[in-house]
């Protein structure tokens, strides 16, 4: 697995997915569940016409499906223990220093004295019986399916659904979201099933259920099958076959292409970006039933977003990747890593400008989104030029709030379906041509 630095946040607000409110507002725009979701999760304050956001990072950010959010509450801070016993490497950050401690602990050859194991609880050092515990199962399965990441994948799919130019249908929306969630659970479980020895060797991932022996590989596979098969069936039969096909394709792409490729070639990053781009496309096809230019644009935006996000993140993990045998751009082609990140930051600006051309949003969207796109591009440029830890971190943290912000702005600038009906255009557009440009 690849990962995401967990931000220091005080608490994760669990999104209660219970209420759906449909209102018709004065200008006939439908405010959907998705909108409320976004509002609840993000605190947007407008100061001087500049949208600034106090984001609750982890749970709010919509990250790519192959980034897991680190379980910070399981690890304890250990910074103070490092100074007297200075490790060989430079102390980069808390995370890295925790890495150091792990390394130091495991390095028997170091002539330094044994470091007190403050990070791990006594629990970790005990021998545990490998028995199936049913009351622990929900927690174990949640970790196995990377439930938080799944929730974020589902929200990107919901964003795709919300942006589709058709009247909102609740049942379709719920079926699509649930099906996508199940598919994501399945894919994540298989990913963990494949990566047990590698996960044990990397700090972020060594507390996963399969690594700790809390669940057997057989059970993990059965769980994946029992999520994936109903999930895809739900999408195919309950929504439409195209969405089901996309879901199945995404699972296969993630488990059979991306996961093995991580250890073979740097191409994995591009494959992973496609994996991240597909959920919003699925949301769109669930709503409209066809693959329009709008779906591809949304997918394109998420695809481009993956690169600054992941490349910035992987910059600080080069040691772990090198030792674990993962082929990542940040290790093998550092220049390319930074170039690609910058390139895709700039392409986000371009893609945002294409949105109104395709009649997905009004022209206010590229204008309002320009500040945040320029800011992330600026940070991308700084990362490109400086190539150090602080610029990579800045870019990474920016990417975490940039995407939800962009999607929210996109949604508020969405071209109203009813307005289009007034103009005589059929909602959803014609399905014959993919790149159809409608004149206002």
């Amino acid at each position, binding site marked *: 697995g690849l990962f995401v630095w967990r931000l220091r946040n005080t608490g994760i607000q669990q999104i209660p997915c219970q209420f759906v409110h449909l209102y018709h507002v004065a200008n006939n725009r439908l405010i959907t569940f998705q909108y409320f979701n976004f509002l609840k999760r993000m605190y947007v304050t407008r100061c001087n016409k500049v949208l600034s956001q106090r984001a609750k990072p982890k749970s709010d950010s919509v990250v790519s499906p192959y980034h897991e959010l680190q379980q910070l509450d399981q690890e304890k801070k250990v910074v103070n223990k490092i100074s007297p016993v200075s490790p*060989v490497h430079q102390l980069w950050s808390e995370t890295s220093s925790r890495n150091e401690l792990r390394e130091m602990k*495991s390095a028997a050859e170091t002539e330094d004295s044994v470091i007190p194991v403050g990070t791990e609880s006594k629990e970790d050092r005990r021998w545990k019986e490998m028995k199936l515990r049913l009351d622990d199962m929900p927690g174990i399965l949640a970790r196995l399916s990377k439930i938080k990441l799944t929730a974020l994948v589902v929200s990107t799919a919901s964003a795709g659904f919300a942006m589709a130019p058709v009247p909102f249908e609740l049942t379709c929306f719920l079926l699509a979201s649930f099906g996508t969630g199940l598919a994501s659970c399945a894919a994540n479980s298989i990913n963990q099933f494949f990566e047990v020895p590698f996960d044990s060797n990397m700090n972020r991932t060594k507390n996963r259920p399969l690594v700790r022996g809390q669940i057997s*590989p057989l059970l993990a596979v059965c769980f994946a099958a029992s999520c994936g098969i109903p999930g895809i069936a739900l999408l195919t039969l309950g929504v439409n076959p195209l969405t089901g096909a996309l879901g199945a394709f995404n699972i296969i792409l993630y488990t059979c292409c991306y996961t093995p490729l991580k*250890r073979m070639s740097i191409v994995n990053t591009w494959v992973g970006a496609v994996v991240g781009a597909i959920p919003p496309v699925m949301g769109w096809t669930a709503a409209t039933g066809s693959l329009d230019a709008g779906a591809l644009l949304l997918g394109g935006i998420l695809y481009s977003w993956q690169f600054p996000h992941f490349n910035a993140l992987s910059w600080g993990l080069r040691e772990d990747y*090198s*030792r674990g*045998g993962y082929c990542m751009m940040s290790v093998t082609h550092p220049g390319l890593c930074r170039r690609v990140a910058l390139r895709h930051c700039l392409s986000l600006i371009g893609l945002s400008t294409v949105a109104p051309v395709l009649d997905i949003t009004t022209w206010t969207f590229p204008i309002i989104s320009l500040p945040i796109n320029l800011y992330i591009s600026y940070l991308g440029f700084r990362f490109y030029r400086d190539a150090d830890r602080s610029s990579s971190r800045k870019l990474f943290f920016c990417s975490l709030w940039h995407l939800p912000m962009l999607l929210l702005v996109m949604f508020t600038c969405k071209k109203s379906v009813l307005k289009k009906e007034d103009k005589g255009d059929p909602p959803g557009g014609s399905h014959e041509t993919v790149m159809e440009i409608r004149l206002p």
Partner: protein
Amino acid sequence: PPAHSRSDWIGPPDTHSNLRPIIFYVPPEESALERRLREARQEAQASNQRFWARHNRAFRQEKEEFIYSRLKAKGLEMRDESGQKATLNAEEMADFYKDFLSKNFKKHLQYNRDWYKRNFRITFLMGQVALVRALRWLRWRKKNVEQ
């Protein structure tokens, strides 16, 4: 693990390989299939342990050597005045990481192939064992119900 236990026990991560060792329970009435499964798991565990312990040791060693040679080139000592170990920053270490990764690339490819094969085989055997056990339990249930 206590002597009377009837299940496998998993321990804390090994210091060298970071893998968690498992002590397998050998039931007295172990079937041939179950024995094959247990042996496959033991073999996989041993092989993984060997690989990662050696690999991590090599990593640490080569890293030390790299730092030493770089510091020497810069004219610095391994320890500065206060007795602390001198370190290189991330950018300097980047060359080492790239080098190490490419040197071990073939080794990893081979290991990946082996690991995937073993993993599938073990999981498949687990499935077979579970199926046999389930059938046995059903038969036992049927017998009990009939009685």
